[in-house]
């Protein structure tokens, strides 16, 4: 066998690729990494194609034992990485040998880290993706988070290049941030006063924050009506239920729903929000769809133009 034994699964470790697309019509959500940028970097630093299956580790606590020679990398939240008990740099590919023990500790800052292996984890696809959505019981291993004793199969060792991302390019996961929102959907149902309140107030991430959505707490925002005919919900949509407390809907959201929405957070910023722990403070800035599009394209170019350093 060639792969990794799960010695300790951690609080919530999920098998993820870039996500499941094109299946909303049968009610399947996208899944995929909450922090797409860190996920993409993890794959790139071990020379994998961008849609390669990796692990999303929430909060930490994962221990693996290698039964293969490979390169691994940990990118994202500041979870201490140890190989055979020795602390190693994150955002940095490391060669490992069969028998090595890989430990990912609990996060000092940030909530999600991505562990990628050269060649990727070999997981059967369901609906053209390996992404685990536990709510649907789809993807990964029978739709579940990693369990102790699971076995992560890998390709036989192949010659992959390894890289490290220089410090100045690594994202920081600081608290107290401003996130950008495009007004849309039922925005007309929110008076100018309600919109000003939303965009000028501070909200806290509550402990009801998961892969489906982040429920926030702060000043109540009230639309002029309570419910709408159920309609499609896009990634980042901010729904306002009857209690006036916003919920930002993420990768594992329901595909349709009937709560009024004030708009949607841009994906670059949902990724940042998903790195926050309960109690973190956020506020919102309004941007236009054109500005959002520019930011998206710039980020794409910046990612492609940032050259990681070879560690071979």
């Amino acid at each position, binding site marked *: 066998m060639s792969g990794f034994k799960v010695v300790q699964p951690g609080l919530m470790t999920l098998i993820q690729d870039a996500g499941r*697309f*094109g*299946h*909303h*019509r*049968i*009610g*399947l959500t996208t899944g995929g990494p909450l922090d797409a940028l860190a996920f993409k970097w993890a794959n790139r630093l071990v020379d994998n194609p961008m849609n390669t299956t990796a692990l999303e580790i929430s909060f930490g606590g994962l221990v693996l034992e290698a039964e293969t020679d490979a390169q691994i990398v940990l990118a994202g939240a500041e979870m201490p990485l140890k190989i055979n008990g020795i602390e190693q740099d994150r955002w940095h590919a490391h060669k490992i040998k069969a028998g090595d023990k890989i430990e990912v500790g609990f996060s000092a800052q940030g909530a999600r880290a991505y562990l990628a292996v050269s060649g990727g984890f070999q997981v059967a696809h*369901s*609906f053209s993706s390996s992404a685990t959505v536990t*709510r*649907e*019981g*789809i993807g990964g291993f029978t739709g579940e988070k990693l369990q102790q004793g699971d076995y992560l199969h890998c390709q036989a060792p192949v010659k992959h290049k390894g890289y490290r991302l220089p410090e100045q390019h690594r994202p920081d996961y600081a608290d107290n941030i401003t996130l950008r929102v*495009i*007004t*849309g*959907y039922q925005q007309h149902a929110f008076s100018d006063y309600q919109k000003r309140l939303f965009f000028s107030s501070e909200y806290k991430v509550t402990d009801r924050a998961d892969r489906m959505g982040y429920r926030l707490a702060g000043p109540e925002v009230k639309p002029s009506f309570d419910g709408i*005919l*159920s*309609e*499609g*919900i*896009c*990634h*980042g*949509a901010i729904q306002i239920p009857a209690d006036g407390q916003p919920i930002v809907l993420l990768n594992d959201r*329901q*595909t*349709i*729903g009937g709560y009024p929405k004030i*708009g*949607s957070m*841009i*994906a670059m910023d949902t990724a940042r929000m998903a790195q926050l722990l309960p109690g973190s403070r956020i506020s919102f800035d309004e941007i236009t*769809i*054109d500005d*959002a*599009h520019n930011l*998206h*394209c710039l980020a*794409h170019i910046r990612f492609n133009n940032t050259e990681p350093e070879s560690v071979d």
Partner: protein
Amino acid sequence: MSIATDQIRIEIAGENALIIYFGEKTDPRVSSQVQQAVTILETELSGKLIDMVPSYASLLVIYDQLATDHLEIRSGIRKVLSQLGESDNREGNLVILPAYYSTESGPDLEALAQRADLSTEEVIKIHSEMEYRVYAIGFAPGFAYLGEVDERIAAPRLSTPRTRVPRGAIAIADRQTAVYPAVSPGGWNLIGLCPTRMFNPEADPTMPVQVGDRIRFNPISRDEFFALGGELGEIR
């Protein structure tokens, strides 16, 4: 019969999504327009779309920001909408779903009948005589929202949702009805069980119905239910 397309609104949904509102309420003609739009947009904007979510009276269009932008998608949608008004009212497939209605398989059947001042037989007759339309699929994989239920047997959601509704449960909430595709929590009124699997990842197609299809429930006996592979399943 066509309806005016100048009522249709296009709104921004998110950074890479527009939503088209075809109307404000549940209406088979509106739903038919949503379906037509899905079919035409798929061809017209091929290679630029990531996904679409049709629902009762709206269509969410999600596009690839590196391939296009909201202006191009908007004009693509406008072009498609101008073709819609003339289109005929396309009919979906008729799908018959066997239904074992009973107090054993539908623990809310009696209470629903009492509320409506009807006998359970009358409730079953009313539910199974109506032809429903699949207006949307969502909430969970394979969960098809069927409408509209006869007003006489419409019923509000339970005040306390159940923690376990079995797979195949036939349920009513307001003027909607559905068959639970998998075991899940749920607050709808349960009136029976359907032995047909509404969602099977291993099957092709995964679902026996799609949005726009027409559905009829065919009452069956307890024996027929088991012969068709039905299981009662625990209800909590």
